[in-house]
């Protein structure tokens, strides 16, 4: 009971629950209003930021091959450390809304083609240079250059031209895009002096912490930047440290032994054990990340929609969720969007395991013989087990699946996006538009289902330009239905991102998209004295 109240009171302080609701809940648990109020006051006290100390995170997802060049960010450690030292044009709040960072204001022309970002004045880079509109333009240029190796290149392609004018940055798009502000929150787009064109890996930006230690694959450290523009919301610890701990057991024991204050990627199978550790809380993010089985729509036998439908109906989603994720996730519905997205299309019928219908479609497809599925634990944790479960549920529908286990090493280069049927994962994107244009439009860089549908492509472009939210929502619903009923994507489940955080940490708020408070945990949290 007290756990629940404690949890709820933290929600009130974080602004996710109203005070009135809290008191109602407390009354239902048989607690007097006076006691409930004192609980609340206690929680509020614990929630007022404390300055000082060294906040440490032990994270999987760092390698000695990492670099501070934001264009090269791929895994969790650079991503999270980037949020400590980097400052963006726009950021995200835990509730998914946009946070104004370097862009103090922004606005679009009526057709959503020309965007103007007003640059906040008086902001300073770590090297004491003032942040200007020119730096912002240079940064965007570097990431949108066709020669660039930037992970943000795909989302920058829609930009036709950009220029700095006084304290404004004016971006003109090739096609209208109502989501541009969301795209600017991409974690690669750290604004750097002269766009990082001189030395992108020097780790200089305008974030709450200055880089003082950079040992790729070992640890990264930052110390508070005295001239940070928004010192009231971020940068409470004197120092932050990211220690790379790729081994899951070592990560858990480091948290348990008090060497770090937070860890990411707790495996579902040990969550119940971690919950029992005194002084440790599990923080679960219901993000847009998902595990998938992808079939190429243009390769036999998957070029037959009946066969694809049979494969979709032969997937026992609930069993996958229960056995692979041990319930830490939610079932998927064969389109890559869940309620973590702002304009999630609601009310689409949930597809369930139906061996009879699957058998019907399978026979209608005329295919005969085994279907080869390639998998590896590189695809997602438990992918091999998932493939075997799928093999069994398919057998119930008379579909024979042959599993080929591929080496983890080289899986992304040799198997995924090359072989016609394999397991994979997606981390999700900030908007539906970016998810669809990354992997589902005909010209997408990673069209890993080889989904070529002209009607769908047109809808993506139309939805991008639509500023009327109701219409847009309807368009996204139609698009989801096309992918769900005609695509090569079999999406059994969305996986939760599970972090564990010490109760010495104050101010932790679960994010909506990424782990550890959308990556802001180190930047925004503090150590309780």
């Amino acid at each position, binding site marked *: 009971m007290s756990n629940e109240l404690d949890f709820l009171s933290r929600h009130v302080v974080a602004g996710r629950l109203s005070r009135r609701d809290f008191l109602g809940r407390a009354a239902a648990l048989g607690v007097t209003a006076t006691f409930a109020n004192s609980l609340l006051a206690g929680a509020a006290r614990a929630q007022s930021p404390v300055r000082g100390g060294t906040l440490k995170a032990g994270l999987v997802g760092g390698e000695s091959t990492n670099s501070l060049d934001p264009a090269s960010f791929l895994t969790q450690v650079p991503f999270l450390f980037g949020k400590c030292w980097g400052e963006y044009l726009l950021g995200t709040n835990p509730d998914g809304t946009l946070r104004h960072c370097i862009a103090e204001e922004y606005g679009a022309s009526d057709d959503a083609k020309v965007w103007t970002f007003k640059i906040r004045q008086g902001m300073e880079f770590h090297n004491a240079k003032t942040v200007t509109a020119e730096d912002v333009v240079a940064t965007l240029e570097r990431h949108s250059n066709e020669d660039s190796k930037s992970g943000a290149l795909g989302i920058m392609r829609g930009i036709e031209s950009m220029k700095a004018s006084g304290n404004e940055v004016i971006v003109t798009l090739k096609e209208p895009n109502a989501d541009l502000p969301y795209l600017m929150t991409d974690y690669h787009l750290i604004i750097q002096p002269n766009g990082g064109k001189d030395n992108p890996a020097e780790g200089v930006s305008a974030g709450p912490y200055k880089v003082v230690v950079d040992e790729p694959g070992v640890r990264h450290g930052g110390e508070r930047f005295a001239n940070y523009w928004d010192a009231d919301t971020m940068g409470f610890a004197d120092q932050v440290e990211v220690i790379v701990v790729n081994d899951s057991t070592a990560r858990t024991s480091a948290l348990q032994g008090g060497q770090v204050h937070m860890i990411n990627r707790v495996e579902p199978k040990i969550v119940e054990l971690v919950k029992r550790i005194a002084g440790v809380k599990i923080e679960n993010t219901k993000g847009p990340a998902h595990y998938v089985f992808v079939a190429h729509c243009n390769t036999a036998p998957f070029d037959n929609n009946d066969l694809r439908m049979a494969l979709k109906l032969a997937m026992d989603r609930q069993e996958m969720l229960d056995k692979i994720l041990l319930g830490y996730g939610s079932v998927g519905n064969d389109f890559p969007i869940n309620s973590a997205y702002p304009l999630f299309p609601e009310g689409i019928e949930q597809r369930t395991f139906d061996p009879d219908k699957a058998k019907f479609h399978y026979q209608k497809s005329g295919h005969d013989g085994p279907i080869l599925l390639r998998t590896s634990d590189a695809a997602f944790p438990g992918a091999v087990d998932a493939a075997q479960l799928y093999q069994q549920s398919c057998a119930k529908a008379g579909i024979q699946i042959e599993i080929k286990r591929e080496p983890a090493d*080289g899986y992304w280069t040799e198997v995924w996006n090359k072989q016609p049927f394999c397991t994979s994962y997606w981390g999700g994107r900030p908007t539906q538009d970016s998810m669809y244009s990354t992997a589902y439009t005909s010209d997408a860089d990673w069209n890993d289902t080889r989904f070529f549908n002209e009607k769908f492509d047109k809808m993506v472009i139309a939805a991008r330009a639509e500023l009327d939210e109701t219409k847009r929502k309807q368009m996204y619903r139609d698009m989801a239905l096309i992918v769900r009923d005609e695509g090569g994507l079999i999406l059994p489940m969305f996986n939760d991102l599970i972090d564990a955080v010490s109760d010495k940490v104050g101010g932790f708020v679960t994010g909506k998209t990424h782990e550890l408070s959308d990556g802001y945990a180190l930047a925004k949290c503090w150590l309780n004295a």
Partner: protein
Amino acid sequence: MGGPILKLVAQRIALGVVLLFAVSALIFAGTQILPGDVAQTILGQNATPEAVANLREELGLNDPAIIRYFRWLGGVLTGDLGTALSNGQDIATSLGGRLWNTLFLAFWAAAVSVPLAVILGLLAVRYRNGAVDKTISGLALASTSLPEFFIGYILVFIFAVKLQWFPGISTVYEGMPFADRMKAVALPATALTLVVLAHMMRMTRAAILNVMQSAYIETAELKGLAPFDIIRKHAFPNAIAPIINVVMLNLAFLIVGVVVIEVIFVYPGMGQYLVDHVSKRDVPVVQAVGLIFAAVYIGMNIVADIAAIIANPRLRHPK
């Protein structure tokens, strides 16, 4: 005695250098047949065809292999190991720190395990087939039969999580105070000691026991010398060559074979560095690390050979 020894030593070293060249060619050839393409692997799931082409061009991957081999070898001979493909860092610089960390850990593991193994081996011989011998051998065999990761996790559980005497993750860094560094390596060094102890101890025991069969030991016994003096003065010096051999093999293992321990204790040594770069197809780093590992093995073997020659006069005068 100086002449022939110097000649033998020079011969061994020359042989080692030739071997190292052969190894360098093998390493280079081996890295060429790794599946996948470095440019694509670096970019991972984010690889677009243009980005891959740009990166290949930039990395000079379009030149023939033989040219790249000699370019590399020339660099190595002048102390230039090149830059890592994946993040552009100078390999010699990043390797220097890692190598130092690995040597630091190996040194402390060896400093504990070698004397301990020899002393335990001597004790086991002195009280052979008795309770002491059986206890020592039993425990040593038990520790060696357990997988490294299991020993590591047990140590972490007891000393880091439960007792909190030592840190469970051993991230060391430059400029770390010596006392902190010692505390950080305490658990991995203990784990390594347990891993290598039994091998060295059993070999010591076996080598001395072998010598104990000799006629001159019987003579010593008949002279009425104390058992421990016989072992110390007469048996041990004659058993030294095989003991040094096994010690050197284990030392080499402590430097090149500790990937698992490094992963468990999050220790920033050479093994972890190599694994990261192999999976990224970062060929120059893989080659550099491979060459250093080969040099360690060859070097240790030369030292063992030379020590054996010095210890045993008969080997100095081959017939």
